[in-house]
Every structure is written in C-alpha cells, then in structure tokens.
C-alpha cells in the first residue's frame, strides 16, 4: 500500500506545502534564512536537525502560530500571508496539529477533547460529535472506556494517541506532528509509527513530522528534510540523505544510534519479505 501511495505522489505535481525563501528572526538571532521546502501530497516528510535549528519554529510558521519575517508559504494552493482572517481560518481547518506534549484541554475528557472541533466547526450536535469522537479514539487504538477519562489520568502514550485523534477530528489534509514519539517507550513509539503509516494510507493525508527519533525516520518517513545552517540542507529519500557529504548528517545517520536504527529497519523489511 505504501508503494501505491508513493507512485501516486510522483504523478501528483502540485505540492501541498511550498515554502520559499522563509526568514525567521527572534531579535538579532536569525533562525531561518532563505529556507525552501516542499511537502508533497500523501507523503510523510520527516524534519530533522540539531537542537535549536528551528524545527519547531518552522512548524509554527507554517501553521500560522508565528508570523515569518520574510518569504512565502503556499499551503493547499493559497498563499498564507495574503489571506484575510476568515480565509485563513478556512485553510487552518484543514490542518491537524499534534503538539509536543499533547496539549489536550485539561478541563475536558477525551471524547469532549475530540468532539470540540466537530461541534465548533462542523456544527454537529453534541451527541453526534461525541459518537464520532469515540470512533476516532478507537481508530487511534484507545479503548472505549478511555473516552470519559481526563487527560491528567493518562499515560504519555495514551496522551499522544488522544492528541492524534483530536488532530484527526476534522479529517485534515495535512497533519503536523511535533516530536510525536518523544517520551514514549520503544514499544509504544514503534506502535505509534505503525499507526501513523496505517492511518496515512487509509485517510490519505500528508504529514509534516518533526522528530529526533531515528527509528521513526526509518519506519514511517517517505522523505527526510535536514535543517542545518538556517536552511534546509537536503530533502530527499532516506538513503540519499544519509549519503550527503555533511558533517552533521554523517554524525546523525552513521553514528552508533543511526546505524542501529538502520540495522533494525533492514532486519524488519527483510523479515517481511520472507
């Protein structure tokens, strides 16, 4: 199924996100300078980079939480900084964002968390919205009884899953994930990677995935973009990125952890072929 989606990508010429010449500054500190990046329809793009290279800032400027200091961002055929507030809100409804620590609303239980955008944006009745919310929670692998629990009583893995269900509430075209597997145990993280690929294949959204997790890159991502020196150093398939002649990229992908993840990924694919 992954193969078909990739084949479809190559036919699809119109990328869902095009970032051109992006500039982001905080005071005199320049985070991004002349940064270009594209996200293609239906792909999972992993965004990696050392701490402080502005991965999260890039995510925040695309979803509209930070106004860029320069450059253009085209999302789903419209230029974000040229839209008025209402048009912008229309575009933003087609985004699903999973924040680093889940950011579930602590005063609502899980089904209310997921139902909120359905009630507010899709104008469903509370009963319908909560029914759909429970389907979404089941879709991300949470048991039915979790629907009435409050975020504070959940484990880290459940919070991430519930946050994913909320991000999927309105069937977004683009899903933004900020370090979704950080803080999960390896089994939970692997299950999350698998879940992401399954849902992408079923629902057909594109994914902008900020991560530090090498295993996620090998297990889930179609392409990888490396942020370094205030721009995107390289954005390509994993093999091509790993062969890029750059000190940081080499240390990242061919260091001990990178090799371990590569070995694990190869072992699991050859295992599948048998």
């Amino acid at each position: 199924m992954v193969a078909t989606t990739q084949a479809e990508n190559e036919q699809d010429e119109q990328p869902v996100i095009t970032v051109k010449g992006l500039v982001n500054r905080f005071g005199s500190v320049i985070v991004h300078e002349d940064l270009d990046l594209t996200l293609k329809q239906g792909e999972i793009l992993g965004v990696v980079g050392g701490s402080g290279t502005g991965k999260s800032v890039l995510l925040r400027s695309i979803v509209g939480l930070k106004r860029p200091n320069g450059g253009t961002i085209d999302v789903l055929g419209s230029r974000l900084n040229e839209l008025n507030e209402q048009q912008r809100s229309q575009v933003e409804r087609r985004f699903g964002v999973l924040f680093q620590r889940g950011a579930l609303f602590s005063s609502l239980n899980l089904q209310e968390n997921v139902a909120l955008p359905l009630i507010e944006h899709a104008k469903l009745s509370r009963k319908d919205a909560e029914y759909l919310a429970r389907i979404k929670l089941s879709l991300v692998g949470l048991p039915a009884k979790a629907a009435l629990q409050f975020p504070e009583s959940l484990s880290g893995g459940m919070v991430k899953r519930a946050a994913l269900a909320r991000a999927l509430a309105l069937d977004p075209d683009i899903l933004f994930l900020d370090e979704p597997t950080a803080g999960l145990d390896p089994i939970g993280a692997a299950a999350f990677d698998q879940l992401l690929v399954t849902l992408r294949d079923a629902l057909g959204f594109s994914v902008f995935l900020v991560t530090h997790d090498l295993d996620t890159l090998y297990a889930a991502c179609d392409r990888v973009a490396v942020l370094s020196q205030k721009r995107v150093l390289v954005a390509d398939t994993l093999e091509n990125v790993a062969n890029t002649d750059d000190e940081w990229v080499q240390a990242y992908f061919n260091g001990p952890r990178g090799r371990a993840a590569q070995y694990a990924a190869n072992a699991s694919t050859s295992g599948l072929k048998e």
Partner: protein
Amino acid sequence: MPNEWITRESGNLSLQHEWTLVHYQALTSLVARYGDTAKNHAVSLGGITQLDTAGAALIVKLLGIENAKQQAANSLPTKQQALLVRVAEAMETPLDVEPANNNRIVDALATVGQQMVGLWSQQRQLLAFIGLVLATLFSLLFRPHRWRFTATIAHIHSSGLNAVPIVALLTFMVGAVVAFLGATVLQDFGATVYTIDLVAFSFLREFGVLLAAILLAGRTASAFTAQLGAMKSNEEIDALQAQGLDPIELLVLPRVIALLISLPLLAFVGMLSGLVGGAMVATLSLDISISQFMTTLQKDVSVSHFLVGLSKAPVFAFVIGVIGCLEGFKVSGSAQSVGSHTTSSVVQSIFMVILIDALAALFFMELGW
C-alpha cells in the same frame, strides 16, 4: 432532494456523491431511513466520489461491520477501501460508554456525604500542616545559618512593601466613611466630637488590622497558591524532595515569616491611614481642628487598644500564609486545579481571618481590655 446520496433501483441501493462530514446531518437521517432496506438488499458503493471518516462511519452503521468490509473490497477504489475497512475495524469495539446509572436522591446524599468528609479532611490537613510548619520553624529557630534571608526579604518586598499603597488608600477611604457615618448619627445627640473616638477605637482595635489582613488574603494567599501550584504541577516540589531538601523549609517558611513581618507593619500603616482619613473629614466638614483631634486622641484612647489590634496581626499572617501554601501543595496537574485551589485559598483565608477576629473580639471584651 435528500435522495441525492442514496438511490434505489429495483430494490437495490446505490450510494453516491460526497459522504463527508459537511453533510453529516442529512446523511444520518438517510441512514436511519434506509437502515432496514440495506439489510436485505444489495448495496453498491461505486458512486461515492468523496469519503471521510464521518461518512465511512455512517456507511458502516448502514451496512453493518462485516458487510461494510466486503462491500468495500468489491466496489471502492484502494484508498477509500482502506479507509472504510479501518473505520469498520475501529467500530468493532463497543463504542457506547454511558456514565453509571444515577438516582438523584442517592446522588444528593452522596454529594452531601462527600462534602462533609471533604470538609473534615480539609480541616485535619490544615491542622497537620500547621503542626508541620511550626515543628520546622522551631527546629530551625536556633540554627541561624539555615535561615533563608534572601528569599524572606524578597517575599517581604513583594507581599509587604508593594502592598503599602493599596492598604493605605483603602483604609484612608474607609476611615473617611466611618467618620461621616459617625458624624451623621452623633449629630442628633450633639456629640459630634465623639466621631474622633469612634474612628480611633474602630481603626486601632479592628479595622486597621482586619482590612490589611483581608487585602493580604486576596493579594498574597492567592499568589502563594499559584506559585506553589505551578511548581507542584511542574514536579519542582518532587525534585526538591528527591534531592533531600525540605520544601517546607525552602518554600513555606520564607513565605510565612515574610507575612509575619509584613502584616503587623501593614496593619500599622492601615491604622494611621484610617486615622488620617477620619481626621480629614473631621477638619474639613465637622469643624473639629487638627489639634483638637490630636488632644482627644491622646486623652480618650489608651495605648492598649493599639496593642489589642496589633496582637491579632501575627495570627492572621500565619493563617493566611499557611492556607495559601497548603492549597498550593494540593494542586494536582491540571490548569483547572490551580484555579480552583487559588479560589479556595482566598475564600478560606478570608473566612478564617474574620472568624478569628470575631472570637478575638469576644475574648478581649470578656477580659475588659
């Protein structure tokens, strides 16, 4: 018109157009209407142009889980097929979760019981915490090298010095009001001059310290609760304990001691400012000169009233500080919890201040002080 999504040809149903969230309500009523027909007839999904999870959920509802999976394999393109199968799988687990069946009378009784037990355990917690704070205070009393001067001074600055303007302004205005009120009543008896005694007695014994304490409860108890609550939910207090440091010694004592020093000073400011307010009304509208005001004050009002008023300040300060800190420690994780405990700390500390003040008034009256 509503038949747009489902058409019926010779008994067989065929679904078409967009089955998406936008049309959810219309689709729901259609699914309800054709529910029985769908069970006994062939259904074709080939005409569907757009499908999302909401639409898929409705199709699964219409066809049943197994049937939906089969139909998906027969008549849908790959991508939508995967979506429908995935949603059908998700709906295999029972989705209806109803909260426990509740009886109103039993619920009401249970709530009353919970409230009573909660109130009782709250008082016990408060007493235990007071004990803990006092024990820590005495254990550190003779070890000056462990006194936290910097933190204490910082808290005196924020909760004492910064509160001087508001305390002074408030008591000044209340002083003026009391003087006006007294003058209005006493004028009928030709005893306007006793307004001075009224203002002096009320502010030295009660109002100076009470108003300062209530302001401090609103201003500082809430701040303490929010500070410690944020630290609690950020696991900072656990981090202190894990390092073998005592959060009572590091966080609570500097705050409580700062209040023990600040509140008597604020009460003194309040008393003076209230007297000034009374004196202003007396001179400007009651034809009592400043010198007359001062001599009456010296002649009629003994220093014991001032001492009675000031003696309550440390008690109030201790109660406000302890309640503010304890409520902070009770915060658990969520933002809502910080809010409810902050409210609770202000309400409790004002309540306790007024309760203690009433008891003290009785006590001092019986003793004739």
